[in-house]
Structures are given as structure tokens and as C-alpha cells.
């Protein structure tokens, strides 16, 4: 099961026990974490920094903003960013609300217990079922000769392609991305909903609150940080996704990760500096989303430990 939560609890830290010896026994103290730090610095932080620095340099290593300006001035690149942001934003928002609704339905809806456990198991699987196989599944379903496409055409006389449906449209990709976005929301938010104590609702009721008041004043504020954190995660999740879209149309589809993929592969024009800038732009966008999340949470959620 995807046991990761960007939610509040994971960040909870215990104060370190006072340990006077720490300062003196530096080397041995660090030995256990050394592999971790060496690994992540070499293979996560430095490569990323390399691109970030490269984004501000020209081919000869001089400081420049040209690469970054090109992101804005080149309409095909700025358009790719725009499409990517739109797809990621809407697939995150729709996925988040649909996932929340499903989570509430299985946890609080009074459905039989097996539905809850079956849904959770399935969500664990589906949230990890992405990439190429997901695209294949949707091509077999809603592709030009897909089963459902044929069914709609022959039985209901509905030609969805004539109506403008296409996987390469924003809406088409969103429909596909929801297949992993919704389950990911379910997997993360169900524990948060489970964390809502039954007594809170009862206390609110004895104090005279209606169900709506209880939700507005307690449930939504309590779930909000986990929910928002997951929305950001869903956003980043689809913003970096490439394989699914690539399977639909190869390099033709104009979204940022495919743009970058083409740059790296040299399909279009080989200009590493521009590649750095595109990568930097991607980090900035997912990074900004997280900064927004952290800023929002520290501002409004002082009650979190």
C-alpha cells in the first residue's frame, strides 16, 4: 500500500534528548546516515542543482537569462507549460474531490465492510497502475476501435470521436489520469477520515450543532491539511507523468515532460541549455505548489503539532 502521506503527522518530531557527547563524537555519530546523505547528494540533489545552475548559463558558462526567457517567448514551450498546468490542475482537483467522495462513501456511508476493504486494496493497485499499460487499457476501451467506443456507436448511436473526444485533448488526458489520481487520493485520505473521532460528532450534536455546522466547523478544517497536501501531490504526480501521454501520441503531444523528453533525445533540436531551463521550470512549478502548501498550512493550521 502506498503508505506515504504528506499529511501533518509525518513531520511530527520529538525533541532530541540532550546529549552533550554529540559534539565530540562527530564522525561515529554520522556513520549510520552517511550512505543516505552521500547517495541523495550525489544522485538527487547535485543532478538537480546541475540543471538549475545550467538554466542560468549559456553554452560557455556565462550567466544569462536567455534560456529562461525562451520559455516564455517560444510559444510552443509556453503553450506546453500552459497545457501541462491545466491538465495537472484539473486532474488533481477532480481526482481529489472524486477520491474524497469515494473515501467518505466507503468510510462513513454505511456500506458493507467488504466494500471498504476491497476499495482500499483496489486503490492501492490502481494508484500504482500508470504509465504505458494504463494508456494501453484506455486505447482498448476508448480508442478509435476500442470496445466502449464501438459499443456507444453501435448501440447508442453516439460517435464520441465525431463529438470531439480525443486522448490528446486536455479533457481526454484528464479522464485517463483520473485512473491513478482518484485511487491515490483514496489511499491517502482514508486514514485521515478514520482519524476523525466519532465523539467529535457526538460532542458537536450535544452542543446543538447540525450536521452541516459540524462539517463546516470541525470536519473540513481537520481534513483540510491532508486534503490540500494530497492535491499538491496529485498535481506533481501528473505534472511529471510522461509515459501515458507518450503512448498515445509519441513526441507529438505538446506537454512539458514530452517537450523535455524530446530535447533530451534530440528529436527536435539539441540545445541542452534550453533543456535545463525547461527542467528548471518544472521544478519551479512543482516546488511553488509545495511552497504554497507549506505557507498555507503554517498560516492557518496552528493547531497541528
Amino acid at each position: 500500500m502506498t503508505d506515504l502521506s504528506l499529511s501533518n503527522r509525518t513531520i511530527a518530531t520529538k525533541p532530541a534528548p540532550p546529549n552533550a557527547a554529540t559534539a565530540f563524537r562527530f564522525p561515529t555519530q554520522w556513520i549510520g546516515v552517511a550512505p543516505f546523505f552521500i547517495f541523495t547528494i550525489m544522485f538527487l540533489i547535485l543532478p538537480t542543482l546541475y540543471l538549475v545552475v545550467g538554466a542560468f548559463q549559456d553554452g560557455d558558462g556565462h550567466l544569462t537569462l536567455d534560456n529562461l526567457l525562451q520559455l516564455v517567448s517560444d510559444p510552443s514551450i509556453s503553450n506546453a507549460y500552459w497545457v501541462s498546468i491545466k491538465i495537472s490542475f484539473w486532474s488533481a482537483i477532480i481526482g481529489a474531490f472524486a477520491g474524497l467522495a469515494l473515501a467518505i462513501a466507503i468510510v462513513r456511508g454505511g456500506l458493507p465492510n467488504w466494500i471498504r476493504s476491497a476499495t482500499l486494496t483496489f486503490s492501492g493497485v490502481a494508484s500504482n497502475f500508470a504509465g504505458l499499460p494504463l494508456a494501453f487499457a484506455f486505447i482498448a476501451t476508448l480508442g478509435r476501435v476500442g470496445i466502449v467506443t464501438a459499443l456507444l456507436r453501435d448501440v447508442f448511436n453516439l460517435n464520441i470521436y465525431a463529438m470531439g473526444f480525443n486522448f490528446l485533448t486536455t479533457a481526454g488526458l484528464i479522464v485517463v489520469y483520473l485512473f491513478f489520481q482518484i485511487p491515490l487520493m483514496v489511499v491517502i485520505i482514508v486514514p485521515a477520515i478514520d482519524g476523525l473521532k466519532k465523539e467529535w460528532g457526538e460532542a458537536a450534536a450535544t452542543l446543538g450543532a447540525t450536521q452541516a455546522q459540524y462539517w463546516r466547523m470541525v470536519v473540513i478544517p481537520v481534513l483540510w491539511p491532508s486534503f490540500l497536501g494530497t492535491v499538491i501531490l496529485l498535481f506533481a504526480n501528473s505534472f511529471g507523468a510522461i509515459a501515458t501521454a507518450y503512448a498515445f501520441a509519441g513526441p507529438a503531444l505538446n506537454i512539458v515532460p514530452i517537450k523535455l523528453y524530446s530535447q533530451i533525445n534530440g528529436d527536435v533540436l539539441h540545445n541542452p541549455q534550453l533543456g535545463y531551463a525547461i527542467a528548471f521550470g518544472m521544478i519551479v512549478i512543482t516546488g511553488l505548489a509545495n511552497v504554497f502548501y507549506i505557507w498555507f498550512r503554517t498560516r492557518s493550521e496552528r493547531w497541528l503539532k
Partner: protein
Amino acid sequence: MKSGKFWAWVVFALSAAYFFIPLLATFEFSLRLRRGVHSFDAYQIVLGDPRFQATFMYSVIAAIFTIILGVLVVVPAAYWIRLRLPQLRPIVEFITLLPLVIPAIVIVFGYIRMYGSNSPLPFLASDLGASSLLVIGYATLSLPYMYRAVDTGLRTIDVRTLTEAAQILGAGWSTIITKVILPNVLIAVLSGAFLTFAIVIGEFTMASLLNRPAFGPYLQNIGANRAYEPAALAIIAFAITWGCMSLIQILSRFAPKSANRPN
């Protein structure tokens, strides 16, 4: 109360339709290779394809090395932080979450530029080096899952007390790690491992950009050139993912229950 239950059923039914129709349709589609009748021909062709076997084996081996590397990097760090350096926890947690924020394609782009053939550390100069870099990349991608799984496992067994108890009984460090800590977090490590396997097995971006003969690029190639085989592959991939998740669930039943300390 009544209407709440009604809406719960509606939401559930809509979700079930959204998730099951594509799976059923894909399955149906995968059986259509032979005109006019349902057959498993597509599966036969795929499974009999030597390229399928070669690339799948390559990815399985890459996944196994990824898991070993992940364990070597994560377990000592998580253990040490629980035991000695709790003040580092926020930094380490932040780092382990980075791969969720930095897209895989960005990370691998960094590798290509930093560890290219002409760099001081020319991973990409040889096949073995490039494969190692792929394993490293996968280990990076799985970092958030691996760390979380192991850390949760360590939390439930209260490593500090266990370690101190072992030390009082005269155990050395190697004994503590191999006889006390590892058996107790084995389940957690395995959970992380199967999740890693599920993520890595069909991974496309890194394998393709590092030009490795892995399962992901093979899938892409089949997808671009065939009609029914991709559907069969999608079903196979779904089954593999399902298998990994089921193993994690089964394992979680054997996990040690939270001992004396609730947090």
C-alpha cells in the same frame, strides 16, 4: 441517514463503473486477436516473444538491485535517526519527499548531463555503468516509499529500547543489526520492496532516456506497432501490480503489532 447511504452507493457505483469498465474492456479487447472468436493468442504471442522475456528479465533484475540498494541506503539511516540523531529527522524526511516533487524525467536528465561519457564519473560510458545508473535512478524514485515503510516498521518495534536491551545482554553491533533489528523490520522492508518492484517494473522514462533494454521501452515499442498485444500487456501489468499489492497486504498481517509505545 437513509439518503447518506443512498449517495454512498451512488458514489461507489459510479467509481466502480469508471474503474472496471476500462479493465473489462481491455481484457475483452485482448482476446480479439483471432478474428471472430475469443482467444488467448495475444497473450501467447507476447509471452512467447523473446524480446518480452529478455526485457522483462532485465527489469526484474534491475528491480531486485534497486531494492537491495534502497535497503542499504534507507535502513541504516532510518535506524540511526531513530536511535541517535532524531534532530536530523526533518531534513531526512524532506529529502525523501523530494522525488515526489522533482519529476523523474528531470532527475534522469541531470544524470545524463552529470554522469555522461566525458564527465569525471562516466557512468554512461559503459553498459554496466548505464544499468547501474538506472538502478540508482530507480532507488531514488522509490526513496519516499522505502523510507516511509521502513520508518513505520521501526516505529512499531521501538528500536531504541530493543537496541539497549540487546546491548545490556552483551550483543555487539553486527548482532544487533542482523539478529534484532532486521528480523523485526523485515516485513516493513519487504512491503517497501514489493511497492518498489511494482513502480519499477514497467518504468519507461528513465529506462528509455538511459537507452536500457528494459521492459518499459519494450512496452512502448509494442504499443506503437501492434493492436491487440498492448491490451494483453496491460492486463499482465495490472496483474503484476495487483500481485505486489496483495503480497504487501498479506505481509502486513505478519507485521509486529505496535509494542509498548504508541508513537
